């Protein structure tokens, strides 16, 4: 519990770090828009290359981005597989028939049992599962001695393959772009930038300043509340709540014994904070000065220009001029 680091910020010195959070957020929005405008797999791969160049110039190690992609790995795989299998075209790219016979069914069960036994010991469990599944499928299509009692044919169409690659590339581009933002911007700067960027929405009733205040207070209180939760756990453990040794049926009561004090303490804390803010004459919506002010540099102008050029290019690739 003590190892939680809030935000993903990693200190650095490249131009991405020197940029104003406002321009970073805006450039991110524009670049994402470009990624959504592009509807061609080749152009999308080009966009991915551009993003990789930004990473290289920004001095962000690719491993950080891969780590950011890890949580969405399952989503990426599923989109890929579904696109691949279910988008139908006119001519098949290739197809293969899987048939179940008593012998290869036995082998399949043996492989699954093996997978079940050693999956806990494998570090990249998800990749391991994928490889096992692919292995079983290949085995079923290539090795089928004896009489088959069930058969199914998998057909892959070029449209499906391109679609799958296109969607995957687009997802990777979008996730990488947003990871760049969170990796190179402190949560406080991000928050301040967001506040400034959302300011024009005041006219449609969105109070950016209050929103930013809520976000920054929430960020500030995460470690405090974790600490409180730990104390509550200890206090209840000393009254016999057994978080590790207990039986399942007692778990519900245990969770209640944690949640109720947690709620009460959170409300108390927010009440105290509100009083403390009021005591220092905090008035929502009033103009306040800041200790950190944002400053727009030439780098920011260049990055914004670059982002808009990318968007223009993306739009251009969709027009008839491109196909000519």
């Amino acid at each position, binding site marked *: 519990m003590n190892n939680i680091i809030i935000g993903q910020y990693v200190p650095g010195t490249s131009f991405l770090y020197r940029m104003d959070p406002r321009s970073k957020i805006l450039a991110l929005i524009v670049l994402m828009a470009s990624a959504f405008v592009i509807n061609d797999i080749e152009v999308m791969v080009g966009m991915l290359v551009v993003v990789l160049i930004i990473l290289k110039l920004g001095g962000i190690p690719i491993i950080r981005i891969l780590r950011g992609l890890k949580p969405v790995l399952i989503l990426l795989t599923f989109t890929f597989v579904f696109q691949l299998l279910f988008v139908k075209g006119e001519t098949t790219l290739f197809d293969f028939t899987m048939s179940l016979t008593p012998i290869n069914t036995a082998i399949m069960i043996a492989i699954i049992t093996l997978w079940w036994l050693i999956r806990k010991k494998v570090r990249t469990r998800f990749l391991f599962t994928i490889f096992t599944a692919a292995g079983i499928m290949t085995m079923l299509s290539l090795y089928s001695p004896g009489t088959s009692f069930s058969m199914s044919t998998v057909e892959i169409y070029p449209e499906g393959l391109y679609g799958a690659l296109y969607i995957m590339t687009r997802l990777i581009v979008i996730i990488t772009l947003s990871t760049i933002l969170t990796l190179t911007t402190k949560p406080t700067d991000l928050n301040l930038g967001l506040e400034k960027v959302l300011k024009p929405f005041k006219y449609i009733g969105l109070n950016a300043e209050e929103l930013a205040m809520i976000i920054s207070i929430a960020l500030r209180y995460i470690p405090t509340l974790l600490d409180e939760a730990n104390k509550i756990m200890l206090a209840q453990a000393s009254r016999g709540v057994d978080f590790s040794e207990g039986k399942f049926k007692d778990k519900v009561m245990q969770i209640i014994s944690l949640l*109720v*004090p947690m709620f009460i303490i959170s409300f108390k804390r927010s009440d105290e904070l509100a009083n403390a803010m009021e005591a220092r004459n905090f008035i929502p919506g009033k103009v306040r000065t800041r200790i950190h002010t944002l400053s727009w540099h030439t780098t920011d102008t260049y990055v914004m220009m670059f982002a808009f050029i990318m968007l223009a290019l993306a739009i251009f690739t969709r027009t008839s001029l491109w196909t000519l």
Partner: protein
Amino acid sequence: MAIEFRGVNFHYKGMDQTDYHALKDINLKIEAKGEFIALIGETGSGKSTLVQHMNALVRPTSGDVTIYGVKVYKDVKKKNTKVRLNPLRQKVGLVFQFPDYQLFEETVQKDIIFGPKNFGVPEKEAIERAKDVIKLVGLDETYLERSPFNLSGGEKKRVSIAGILAMEPDILVLDEPTSGLDPKGRDSLLQLFTDIHQKLGSTVVIITHDMNIVYKYANRVLVMNQGSLVYDGTAGKLFKSKHLEEWNLDLPEIIEISRNLQEKLGIKFKETPHSIDHLYELIKEEL
């Protein structure tokens, strides 16, 4: 021997990932019967961390704590899968400083019987115990049906102490039981702890900042300073120590008064007074 610390060190990582050395090589023995121990030391000296080791809530980074024959060390759960730490918490009852961390039930009664029920006491007996302990802590039975959240700070504190007393622990450990109480409430609670100590003979450990309490009640004093146990002995000897300033401790009022009197009047008492009456006797002898 109820609790024995042997070479206990405890490290923890703060939110900023820096390493804190909260306990440094603690060696300590606590008997099951007859001790009234005051644990003192400035804020952040490791007092609370030390008492959390006494009922195996936290496990030492190195060294071991033996609690009623159960040896608790860093990887105790991995090395000895049969070990059950939970029963130790019934033997050594620990009352936390802030009652808000533990009160959660709709009524005071339910909250008091929560602990005993976790240790397998039948509900009926637990309710009987609740009726007893609520009186012990100086509240009456009408409180049992009230919500713990509508009580005053002092009342909450008493309810949280009642919740631990109802578990009938062998050793009672209290983290600043008198903070936030008015003088009358403080005295009545301390009277309760001395009663428990004298009538049942159980060992009581209290963390406090009040030197008057230390001097008046404790028959053994432990002083913590920056994670180390720097003093283990009687209160009388402690307040003659030269290190008081270094450990950021002050004197009990009665000793302060008698020192001032001796200085101002240029006299010397035969012994250090332990109460107002005793001081009166000493002055009378001198005049």
